[in-house]
């Protein structure tokens, strides 16, 4: 009897369940997105299910999206980057200062072009330097990333406020503005930029030695170091890449607002963490997928736009974001308990089956003794 049970292959499970087991976060988020679409679609079908709404969502998402990517990479390494908004604002200010100085109504297009290139390079350098310093302190002095980035955030924002006296720098050439407000083939340019960043980060995290090292560091830094990975330099690059993504976000932000200021987008800081964790990025480090993050951004955007259309205040939307986050954690916990119970039952069943099969052998041994 027991040998027969062992010989029959396990019944083929439906593909949906297999997907659920392999990637529960993605399935949960997709489910929540469907629920949200159904909810808003039934309350305000004419306005919510329109091309106009889709377009406005596509314009709003990239900023938060790119910043969330910048938060995701340090999270995967087991750290955190609280300085992302400050970095984005400072490099936007550097770019804005150069653009407004060098570009006057009378200058030639060639001069304009080189000014834009110079500004972009300066913003890039600013972000690179901030990321490098942050990463070096995290990696080589072994200070907790929350503390380091708390310090860089305060200092970088302080520098931006000090240099501008809290003021606004605005008025950019149309090339820059196109990135924020223009579209190609009906897709907003900023959305294309965001998708490019997503693909780039996704490939980097999953298909390069760097990405694998980052995830390994997030799981167990000591073990990674002992297996010969230069964890210090990898961590430095984690914060450099995070900062450079802030630079991309800075370009999009200054293009959308047509200005730069030290205090822009500060409320995004904690929302990026929320989006990343909701997207299944393990805040302890090591695990997470860009697809999950993207889906969580879509969900947050649908909630935001939907409630906006229903006439609720943006504060309620933020409150619901917070509640969604806790709900997602709770679903994760319940799911884990259910699966561990299932696993327990399954292993218990197979254990008992095996022990039944083993019994004669055991008695045989005992008899021999």
């Amino acid at each position, binding site marked *: 009897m027991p040998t027969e049970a062992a010989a029959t292959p396990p019944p083929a499970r439906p593909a949906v369940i297999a997907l659920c087991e392999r990637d529960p976060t993605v399935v949960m988020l997709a489910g929540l997105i469907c629920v949200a679409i159904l909810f808003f679609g039934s309350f305000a079908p004419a306005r919510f299910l329109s091309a106009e709404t889709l377009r406005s969502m596509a314009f709003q998402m990239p900023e938060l999206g790119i910043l969330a990517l910048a938060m995701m990479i340090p999270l995967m390494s087991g750290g955190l980057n609280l300085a992302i908004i400050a970095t984005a604002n400072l490099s936007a200010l550097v770019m804005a200062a150069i653009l407004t100085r060098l570009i006057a109504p009378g200058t030639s297009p060639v001069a304009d072009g080189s000014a834009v290139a110079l500004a972009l390079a300066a913003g890039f350098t600013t972000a690179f330097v901030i990321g490098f310093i942050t990463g070096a302190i995290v990696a080589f002095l072994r200070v907790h990333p929350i503390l380091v980035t708390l310090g860089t955030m305060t*200092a970088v924002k302080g520098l931006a406020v000090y240099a501008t006296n809290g003021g606004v720098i605005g008025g950019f050439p149309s090339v820059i503005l196109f990135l924020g407000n223009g579209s190609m083939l009906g897709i907003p340019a900023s959305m294309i930029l965001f998708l490019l960043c997503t693909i780039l980060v996704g490939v980097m995290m999953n298909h390069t030695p760097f990405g694998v090292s980052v995830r390994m560091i997030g799981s167990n830094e000591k073990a990674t170091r002992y297996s010969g990975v230069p964890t210090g330099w990898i961590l430095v690059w984690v914060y450099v890449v995070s900062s450079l993504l802030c630079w991309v976000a800075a370009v999009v932000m200054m293009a959308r607002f047509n200005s730069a200021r030290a205090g822009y987008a500060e409320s995004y800081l904690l929302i990026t963490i929320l989006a990343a964790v909701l997207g299944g990025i393990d805040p302890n480090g090591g695990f997470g997928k860009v697809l999950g993050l993207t889906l969580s951004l879509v969900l947050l955007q649908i909630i935001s736009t939907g409630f906006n259309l229903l006439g609720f205040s943006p504060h309620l939307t933020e409150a619901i974001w917070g509640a969604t986050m806790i709900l997602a954690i709770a679903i994760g916990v319940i799911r884990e308990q259910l699966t561990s119970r299932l696993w327990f039952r399954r292993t218990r069943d197979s254990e008992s089956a095996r022990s039944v099969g083993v019994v004669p052998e055991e008695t045989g041994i005992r008899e021999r003794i």
Partner: protein
Amino acid sequence: MPNSGSVIKAAFRRHDVQLAGIICVMALVFSTLSRTFLSAGNLVALLENYSVMAIMACGLLVVLISGGIDISFAAVAAVSQYLTAIIIIQLGGNWVLAFVLSAGFGFLLGIVNALLIYFLKALSVIVTISTMTFYFSMLLFVTDGKSLYDLPDWFTADLSLFGIPFPIVVATTALLLTVLLLSRLALGLQIYALGGNPEAAKRVGCNLLGLHCLVYGYSGLVAGFAGLVEAHRVEEVVPGALIGRELDVLAAVVLGGASLLGGTGTVSGTIFGIVLLAILQNGLTLLGVSSYSFGLVTGLVILISVSVTAYAAMRQRKRSAVNAD
């Protein structure tokens, strides 16, 4: 047998002694450069300005020692401040009632954090970011961001005990309460144990659920105090007034030697951390440095302080490793 030299050396290696030294040097420099710095008026104003921060720092310190972190305390302070203000405006009352109400609301909101963290087994930073967003956004949604100006007269009237302004009295009380909790009660030791090694604390027989409730509840309770004191100082209740201070308070507590990994931290260190930031900003103001530079200076101080501390700890580890060999 340690001689006096090594005792002094050991003392200098202590974080709070180092901080006190830096504070003394800074006070000396500022008092020679500016006459007003050491005047009684300036010092009292300084203490009063930073009393709200000190009160909130007490709660955060206890949470950090237990190995968690609380980002939501400013939102909790704002909510309990607002609820209390509505009740005392509608029904009248007195200071005792106001304190009981505000501390009670704060405690309840803190308990919500504790239950979520304990039962969902989630990282405290993630849970408290979520609850912060939720509490504060709900407050803004329900109140429409409206400020309350018509506070009762007894609430806004000048208040002092033996000539000491009310905010300083409350801050001192909160600090003493925290000392009592952390170093005079057995519960304090359990909080340190929870932060040092939660599994060990559990096996020794600590009630982890109770400790979580105590720690986050305490943080909410003192946040309630802080909200009241802030409302008393500015004579109005502005929903967004306290938000954005979370990371400043965290900076001060960390400057005072509390570790984010839990298990370490003292009230004296926290006081020194706050005093350091306070003196720095006040001194710079008196020297005529633009207030726009504060952020930059504060950020650099945090970066230098955590880097130096980490560097010293690393050298110490290397030294003890060599000695062990």
